[in-house]
């Protein structure tokens, strides 16, 4: 808080308040444009938080905004870049800090209080260099002149100059562009969109397409600058989450394996929860209660509750390893391997032109490389043509007993198969026997329209686009196994 203990936002005239909060609201808009979900209530919390900290202290202000606006560790990096870009003059030609004038619209006691702080040498975060500039900037912010507000946040001219060197202004771009299909194909989420945008930006050195609805005046410039900044700062450890699985390099396999194992454990827990959960609440077991209380003459002194029965999940995984899936075959096997390491009742199959059971090869304790080499050596399906109908027919013939009302079938395939009509019929039959069929399709959903049979398959299963670990995670947590009611 400032030294006077006064809240600079309280007791201010409406016009003053509007001008003061405007830059913060713009910052919130920038965050939203970058895919960070920020509610109005959180914006209000942020303003309240700023009123309680030392506004001269840039790091304090940053922490205050971060803890109120960003509620997800994945978004923290975006926030950091947005904050640095938004609140720091990007070209380093900051005019010398000037003493903030007392605005006639600003309550004198507030300005005096903050001003008093500015004059002294403070210990803490805001004592040197940029920290002091930040303090001055915030003081200017409170003085709320329009031109100073512009200087405080971002310099549209600078950003535009930078972007003009690389292409047309963001605001003039259309809604379609080279990035959009790629971004859509790669992810459902805005954060993943950002990652893809960063990647594209980095590779092509061209401005990327702003997300729909993000072009809000000058904010798209800030969003562009933030994205560039994130790219310049390099990738982080979570990039693999958003990477298309066909691009995963061999040296990243151990990391992917660890990520998938973690995810598989999550999936196993979810499945377990779904099957064991009989009731939303612990319920009174009337029969046992009456029985145990007969010795008290029927007076219900001891209550007995129904217990949940733990049931183990049953999973059947059928993975396409045909030629068209060659890019994703490793991903599919990694997924099977990861699940097999945490779920006991799992049956794994691979198919191309025929079906092969791989459960015996998924031995616990074997590393992924060992498992993969055994699978490649022992199985003959790799890289063949796709005949889903033959595979499902064989499954129904030889492994029908695996399909029970408690079985969830997970099918990993791009649905590029011969005899799709037959395959649809077999899929229908399997659906009638199993609890659920979840189809993970690595093809971008935009391309599904080019394979009409996909829509026939979708009538009998839940199909999700899935080409990255992040997407798999979202499917698992959000769609694949919704909680039982």
């Amino acid at each position, binding site marked *: *808080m400032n030294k006077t203990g006064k809240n600079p936002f309280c007791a201010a005239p409406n016009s003053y308040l509007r001008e003061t909060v405007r830059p913060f609201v713009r910052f919130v808009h920038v965050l939203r444009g970058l895919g960070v979900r920020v*509610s109005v209530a*959180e914006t209000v*919390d942020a303003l309240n938080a700023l009123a309680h*900290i030392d506004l001269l202290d840039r*790091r304090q202000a940053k922490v205050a905004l971060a803890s109120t606006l960003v*509620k*997800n560790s994945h978004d923290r990096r975006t926030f950091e870049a947005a904050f640095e870009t938004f609140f720091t003059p990007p070209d380093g030609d900051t005019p010398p800090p000037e003493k903030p004038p007392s605005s006639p619209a600003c309550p004198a006691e507030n300005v005096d209080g903050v001003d008093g702080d500015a004059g002294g040498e403070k210990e803490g975060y805001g004592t040197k260099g940029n920290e002091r500039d930040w303090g001055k900037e915030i003081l200017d912010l409170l003085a709320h002149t329009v031109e100073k507000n512009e200087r405080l946040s971002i310099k549209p001219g600078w950003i535009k100059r930078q972007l003009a060197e690389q292409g047309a202004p963001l605001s003039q771009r259309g809604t379609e562009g080279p990035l959009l299909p790629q971004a859509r194909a790669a992810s459902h989420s805005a954060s993943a969109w950002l990652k893809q945008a960063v990647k594209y930006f980095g590779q092509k050195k061209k401005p990327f397409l702003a997300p729909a609805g993000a072009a809000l005046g000058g904010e798209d410039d800030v969003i562009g600058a933030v994205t560039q900044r994130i790219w310049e700062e390099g990738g982080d450890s979570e990039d693999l989450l958003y990477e298309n699985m066909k691009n995963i390099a061999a040296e990243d396999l151990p990391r992917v394996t660890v990520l998938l194992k973690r995810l598989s454990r999550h999936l196993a827990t979810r499945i377990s929860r779904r099957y064991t959960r009989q009731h939303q609440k612990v319920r009174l077991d009337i029969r046992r209660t009456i029985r145990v209380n007969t010795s008290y003459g029927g007076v219900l*002194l001891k209550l007995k509750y129904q217990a949940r029965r733990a049931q183990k999940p049953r999973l059947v995984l059928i993975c396409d390893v045909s030629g068209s899936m060659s890019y994703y075959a490793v991903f599919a096997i990694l997924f099977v391997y990861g699940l097999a390491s945490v779920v006991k009742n799992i049956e794994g199959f691979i198919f191309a032109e025929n079906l092969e059971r791989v459960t015996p090869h998924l031995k616990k304790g074997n590393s992924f490389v060992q498992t993969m080499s055994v699978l490649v050596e022992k199985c003959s399906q790799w890289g063949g043509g796709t005949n889903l109908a033959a595979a499902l027919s064989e499954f129904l013939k030889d492994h029908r007993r695996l399909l029970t009302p408690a079985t969830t079938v997970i099918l990993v395939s791009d649905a590029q198969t011969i005899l799709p009509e037959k395959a649809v019929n077999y899929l229908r039959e399997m659906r009638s026997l199993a609890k659920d069929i979840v189809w993970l399709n690595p093809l971008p959903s935009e391309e599904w329209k080019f394979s009409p049979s996909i829509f026939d398959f979708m009538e009998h299963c839940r199909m999700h686009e899935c080409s990255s670990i992040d997407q798999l995670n979202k499917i698992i947590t959000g769609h694949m196994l919704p*909680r039982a009611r």
Partner: protein
Amino acid sequence: MNLKELTVERVHGLLEEHGYICERELAVTVYLALKLEKPLLVEGAPGVGKTEVAKVLSRAFNCELIRLQCYEGLDENKALYEWNYQKQLLKIQMHKEGMGGDLSESDLFSNDYLLERPLLRALRSGQKTVLLIDEVDKVEEEFEAFLFELLSDFQVSIPEMGTLSAANIPIAVLTSNKERELSDGLKRRCLYLYIDYPSVEKEVRIITTKVPEAAPKLAREVALAVSLIRSNRSIWKKPSISESIDWARALVALGAKTLDQETIKQTLGVVLKNKEDMETVTREVGLKALAAAAQRA
């Protein structure tokens, strides 16, 4: 506790005085949670000190710590309140046999028959309390939604008694291991704090604070070795701060003066808790290299 007199420096000082070594950024968030009287949602890997935040706040402000340990299946009967059915039945039986006086329905649903669970106890406490809702990611979404009213207005609705508001707004701390994503509604009501694994310097401070018997050199070696293990991306379960502390304690108990290859081999199980990780460290890092890296301290 006088919230008006709180400053960031004071909060930081209090946390460190009570053995919680942290950066000032963490203190700022805690300070804001106290000032704004909003719940603090703490996320991070297991063992980085999330629960400890609540414990330290309890000690620092001399408040009772009321802990609600979350688990799958937790419901309001176990978290908020339950009626004492047995006592109610006895009262009815006594009334039927003419042993009790007048009996109305409101008598049966009065405070006498109310069993307070942690959340209600925190709200009705005459003193300010620290309410720790631990591992909130373990509960179902329904219970999470049930917490909304409590966390936004510090009040709960009991059908038979109406709305009960907090006599003293508790310092609420929620922790999550991120086993699942919490709802936006819950997050919106909280201030957010993410605790990451500490830097080597910070970990040395933590170890020397928690294990004063450990020599500074040994503490530094442990911190460096743990940091090196954590940096290996193939590790399934990264060692937490509490495991670093346990390792330092184990080394002190064994009388080890330095972290050499043989000592690491004997005590690796203290810091790594599964076979795969031990094999990974042995294979990819190498115990000799680990000892050499640690001893460079």
